[in-house]
Structures are given as structure tokens and as C-alpha cells.
């Protein structure tokens, strides 16, 4: 019983991490049709910002608070300078964002000396819940992720800004025809996606340490999650991320880890073959 609870909690916390990473990717893909190959590097930048703030002597949570804003600002600049030119050529966007990611990754690698560096979590220690040792920080990640999800959902469905975003998401031409400035919406959405990634990076850096390849590690799972969840909605990437995260964490309990790894992908592909729209079949594909 104890190990089942343990398993559930760990699976949940890893799932939450993946959801956070994937959400930004999914939103950007849904709205602009661009698969941002540099998304992983936004996660890395969030982690790096947290590390920098910490090594400057300030408390870690300050770095974690700052990270989404720093990365959002960075994302905004990138969107204006680079990404905007790719809306008409989404394929070229792949090359462009890949190149961008390469530059960011290698720069960070040079700055941190290619090593793995730890960043302490703001809340140290474990709680004992129902006989199970639960890491407080991982619990915090789950809670924060849930709050962010709820907040984003409310923003999208209850505010007029959210209405405009959803309009641009579902039918850009009609939105433009209705007087919505899709250009501004795109910029803000991109920045928002980047902020989410930055937050994800900041939250997970105590768990995984800071290293230059932190971003790439999540990129493939991110794409898989977006495909699995379905493009064109907000719930899609969340569902996809949750599914991928849960499977990645849960399968090693049941089968040999080497096999579990591949199985996640195979299961996802077979699922999408049978249900092409993805988990939440609702939007444009």
C-alpha cells in the first residue's frame, strides 16, 4: 500500500512537471502553427536565471519568481525579432528555432562550464503523509502547477483578453477581420508560453540540477505530448503532457526501465493512429 501511494505521488509530480513544460509549447503550436524547437531552451533559461539569482546570494524563491518574467521578456524580444518572420513559413520556423536553441544552449554551456550545478529548493525536507515520505518541494510543484493551470484557464475563459486569445487560436483570419490585433496577441501568447517554460525550468532545477542539455531532454516528450493531446485547444497539451508524464513515471514500476522508455512513445503513436485528433479532439489539427 505504501509503495502504491509512493508511486502515485511520484507519478503525479513528474506528470505535473511535464505538463508545465508542455503547456507553453502547445499553446504556441496551436496558435501560430509553429513548433518551437527552442522551447526547451526557454526552460533552460528559467533554470539558469534561478541559479544566477541564487549564486548572487539572494533567496532561491526570489529567483523562481523572477524567472518567468525574465524569460517572458526574452521571449517577447525573440518573437519580435525572429519568430514573427516565420509565421508565413512555419517550416523555416523549425530551422530557425532550432538554430536559436543551439545558440542559447551552447552559450549557457559555456557560461556554466559544462558542468551539472545544484540549486537548492526553497522548501527543504519531506512530509510524512499516510506513512509515505513525500518531498515537500515536489508537492509544492504539483500545487503550483495546478494553480497555474487553473489561473490560465480562468484567464482564457473569463476575461475579455482571454476571449480574444481564444478567437485568434481558433480562427485567426476571422479574428483579424473582427478587429483583433493578432500580431499583438501572438506576441503576448508567445511571451506567455515562454513564461510558462521559464517557470517550469525554475521549479524543476532543484530536482534535476542545472545543466546545458536540460531543455533538450524535455523537447521530444513535449512534441509527443502536444501530438497526443491534440493541437488547437488549451486542454489538449495539458492532457497530453499529463499522459506522457504519468506514463514515463509509472511504466518503470511495471516493466524494465529500458523498455518503459520506448513503450511510452509506441503507446502514444498507436493511440494517435487510432484517434487522430488526439486526446482532446477539438481544434485544428
Amino acid at each position, binding site marked *: 500500500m505504501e509503495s502504491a501511494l509512493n508511486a502515485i505521488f511520484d507519478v503525479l509530480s513528474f506528470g505535473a512537471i511535464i505538463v508545465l513544460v508542455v503547456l507553453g509549447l502547445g499553446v504556441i503550436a496551436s496558435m501560430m502553427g509553429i513548433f518551437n524547437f527552442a522551447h526547451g531552451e526557454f526552460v533552460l533559461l528559467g533554470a539558469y536565471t534561478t541559479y544566477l539569482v541564487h549564486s548572487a546570494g539572494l533567496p532561491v524563491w526570489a529567483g523562481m519568481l523572477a524567472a518567468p518574467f525574465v524569460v517572458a521578456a526574452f521571449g517577447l524580444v525573440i518573437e519580435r525579432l525572429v519568430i514573427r518572420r516565420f509565421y508565413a513559413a512555419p517550416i523555416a520556423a523549425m530551422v530557425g528555432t532550432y538554430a536559436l536553441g543551439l545558440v542559447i544552449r*551552447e552559450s549557457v554551456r559555456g557560461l*556554466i562550464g559544462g558542468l*551539472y550545478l*545544484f540549486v537548492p529548493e526553497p522548501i527543504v525536507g519531506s512530509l510524512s503523509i499516510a506513512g509515505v515520505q513525500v518531498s515537500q518541494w515536489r508537492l509544492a510543484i504539483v500545487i503550483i502547477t495546478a494553480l497555474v493551470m487553473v489561473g490560465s484557464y480562468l484567464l482564457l475563459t473569463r476575461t475579455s483578453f482571454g476571449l480574444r486569445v481564444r478567437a485568434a487560436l481558433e480562427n485567426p483570419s476571422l479574428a483579424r477581420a473582427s478587429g483583433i490585433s493578432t500580431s499583438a496577441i501572438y506576441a503576448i501568447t508567445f511571451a506567455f508560453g515562454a513564461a510558462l517554460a521559464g517557470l517550469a525550468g525554475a521549479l524543476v532545477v532543484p*530536482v534535476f540540477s542545472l545543466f546545458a542539455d536540460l531543455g533538450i531532454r524535455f523537447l521530444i516528450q513535449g512534441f509527443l505530448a502536444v501530438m497526443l493531446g491534440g493541437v488547437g485547444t488549451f486542454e489538449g497539451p495539458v492532457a497530453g503532457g499529463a499522459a506522457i508524464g504519468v506514463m514515463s513515471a509509472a511504466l518503470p*514500476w511495471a516493466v524494465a*526501465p529500458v523498455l518503459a522508455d520506448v513503450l511510452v512513445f509506441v503507446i502514444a503513436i498507436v493511440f494517435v493512429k487510432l484517434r487522430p485528433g488526439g486526446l482532446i479532439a477539438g481544434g485544428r489539427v
Partner: protein
Amino acid sequence: MDHGNADRGAAPTMSRRRLLQRAAWTAGAIATGVGSWVIRPDWASAAEPIKVGIATDLTGAIGYAGNANANVARMLVKDINDAGGILGRPITLLIEDTASNESVAVGNVRKLIQRDKVDVVLGGITSSMRNAIKDAIVARGKTLYIYPELYEGGECTPYLFCTGPTPAQQCDEFIPWLIKNGAKRFALPAANYVWPHKLNEYARKVIERSGGEVIFEEYYPLDQVEYSATVNKIMTNKVDMVFTTVISPGVGPFFKQLYEAGYAKRGGKLACVYYDEDTLNINAPHEIEGLASCLDYFRAVIHDDPASARIQAEYDKQFPGKILLSAGSGATGMYRGLKLWEAAVKEAGNLDRDAVAAALDHAKISEGPGGPAEMVPGKRHCKMKMYTAVAKGGNYDIVARSDGLVDPKTC
């Protein structure tokens, strides 16, 4: 300042020759170079430089280790040249990047062999890199190759010499020490590639021979970062010694999850034989408190051995910063390799591959990081002093030293 790939280890009188060589290389590089059958003028010179090639990972995931190797090479070559070179000839050092990528590596290694025509190549860090470049160097390139990094043993290719620790060296004294200090129930969680497989194979024999018990041995994909299932197994089976070969990016989260589950609190211990100063920063100090490792060198050895202290001080002065002289990166093996090769060339009196190989076969050095070293004749591997160290408060304490030089027991 690096000038491309040639370090100026030579005296200024070489500059015109160097310039002409550089010009020839540039022309070749822009694909209008001179064909390989043109006879070059014979620049008869008594002080024709000896060319040493270093092929190591300067960029990419293994860059932190490759750069340490390159730094050690630079430091040593400068020292040797300042002392008059070998056989009265200066050394020219040529460094190529293997970029943590085997396909790129082979192309760059070929530059060393065919364009620069080096007399020896040192380098490669991961075993997959060594396997990728060894043919280009030894078989097709007919050049000596010295591999400096700790690995799984079993590399018995002629003209390929290894100066890093083998499983025997890392386990023979270490595991009995662990058992003597209370370890009984071992878990062997490992990364899924060759080195952990071979190491665990050897370790298991030593564990069982010394009275310990292996509770489980499990392999994980190299980039797995979620270890809850493993931690659970360790806790429920009352394992008291986790002898792990999980590597980054997984090892940090693994140790963290283990700590959070209460493993250390109930007296569990950690052992990881590639852990050195580079890896200390992956976790918070309390998460790896008491972790034991066994390598040919730790920084703390400078209190034991004056020669090591001198070498470390010199390295720190020339290369302050993040790239450390550490055993896990192969930098110590690089030092040993270059010095042993130097001794071999002096004995052979020339640079003929067979003569140097024959001399290298039984070469010895009396000073090096960690102490002296000796090649085992016929085996092309190196005996060296091994140290057991324990992590305390984010630094290592040496708790045991081998009496003499430990045998690699391979080939």
C-alpha cells in the same frame, strides 16, 4: 591564446616554417590545396619538432572533461619544452575537438593523422568515442594511441595504451574497505551502457568474495531522471550500500530522491566510483554526505604527496576557473600518459612507432598526480596508486590509500 589548433610550443625560429605549414593547411581547407603526392622540400633542421596530437571533447556534453585534458596537455608540453624538449627537440601540440560526437570526431582525428602527421595521439573520453576513433588512429593511421580515462577494461588492441583505472583497480581495495566499514546488503543501480555492466560484473565477484550480498542489479536509460521505483526497491529491501554507476543527468535526481526517502537517515551509504570534484556540485552537500569513491587522484591527495601538490598548484595557477584537474575527467590519466610516453621516447631514442611502443610497454614514472605509475609489460595498462575518499561537507577526505601500485588485471 590558441592559434587555431597549433599551440606554439616551439621556439621562435620555427615561425617561418609554421607560417608555411599554416598556409598549406589553409589552402587545403578551402579545397584548393596541394595534392598529397607532391614532394615537400626537405627542411633539414636538427630541431625538427615532435608532434603530439590531442583528440578530446572540447565542446558538447563531455566538454568539461575534455578541456581539463587539453589543459593538462598544454601545461605539460610547456614544461617539457622549457626543460629543452625531448631528445633535444621541441614538442608541437595539436589539439582537435571530438565534440562529444563520434562522427565529427573521426573527421577531426583524421586531420591529426593525415594533415598534421602527429607522432602520437592522446585522448578520447567515453568508450564509444575511443571505439570510434581508435581505428582511424591505430589501424588506418598507424599511429600510437594513449587512452587516459577510467573505463571497463578489455581494450587490448596493439599500439593502444590505457592510463586510466580499470574495474579491478577501482574495486579490489575499495569494496573490502566498504564491507569492513559496515556495508552488507548492496544494490547496484546502473546506467545502461558497457562500463557499468563490466564494472558490476567485476564488483559482484569482489562483493561476494568479501562477504557482502548483492540484493539487486538494475540498468536504466542514460537520461532517465525519475527514480522513484528504484528508491522504493532500495528502501523496502533494506539495502545499506548503494553502489551506483548511474550518471548525469540521472544521478543528481537519484541521490536527491534517495535522500528524501530517508535512506541516509536510516544509515544507508552511497558509493560511486566515478565521483570526483567535478561531480560534487550536482547535489547539495547533505544529500551526498558520506559518499565513498575510489580513484587514482583526489585534490585532497596534495596533503599526502608533495609531487601531487606541486602539479595541482601549477595547474591551478595556469588554469584558474571551472575546469578542474580531476581523476574522473581523465586529466590525471592524460598527465600519466604524456609523461610515460616522454619516458618511452627518451628510452627509444627515436620516434619510430614500434620502438616507442616497445619502450612504452614497460615505462615508469616516479611522479604524477596521485603518485608514481608503471606500465604492466605486455598488457598496455598501467599500475597506479588508488585512493578511497569520502565526501564530507562538500569536499573529499582521503580515508584509505593503497599500499603500493594496484594492478589493472586486464588483457
